[in-house]
């Protein structure tokens, strides 16, 4: 049981580390505003939904 918990924690730590380093890695040039082709479905919680492109105050 303890081994299973330790194994899970180790995997979670590896994922967290890679996630952190991935988001610290700068985007290549000309790739700052790329988005997946999306015309918007009902899932507004998705990061690719066009509603997230609306800027505040506009």
């Amino acid at each position, binding site marked *: 049981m303890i081994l299973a918990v330790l194994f*899970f924690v180790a*995997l979670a730590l*590896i994922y967290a580390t890679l996630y952190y*380093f*991935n988001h610290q*890695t700068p985007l290549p040039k*000309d790739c700052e505003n790329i988005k*997946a*082709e999306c015309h918007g479905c009902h899932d507004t919680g998705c990061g690719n939904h066009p509603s997230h492109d609306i800027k505040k105050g506009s």
Partner: protein
Amino acid sequence: MDLSNLFVMFITFTLINNVVLNQFLGICPFMGVSKKSSSALGMGAAVTFVIVAASLVTYGLYYWVLEPADLEYMDLITFILVIASLVQLVEMIIKKTSPGLYKALGVYLPLITTNCVVLNVTLNNITEGYNFAEMLTYSIAIPVGFTLVLYIFSTIRERLELSNVPQAFKGNPIALIVAGMMALAFSGLAGLV
């Protein structure tokens, strides 16, 4: 290792037991990333790469770590974390080494983390008891079939955009009807092997 068996396996999982049209997995990217054929190919390439890499890692992890330690019941959570970690690693490497490749398919990589096809392939490699060659063949055949169907569907959808479709059927309704017809068409390949 019988090459003819591996070839039959490849044809079976690419066309006959197609992951989208027969097993009904990966429907979300199938519907969401198929409006343009260029994005369909990008998604297919990214899925192929991630599935093959994830299969190799999870296969080794299961037989070299989980099974010797009697932790086989941890396979589901282990594979989920491995796939998520692998996608982060691949995205990081592509950002650093190949900006062109990142521009082409980097945006799809986070979408693949939640793609059930990847988890299905890694789990089936274990439950079906495949040896290494069979695992590799299965892991290549499934995403090739996924890409093929996704590309065909995207070309049909591109033509539908220019067709005179009744208002009530525009968009997803006609797309789902087309997907059903494709599934019927592919079911006709059942007697191929």
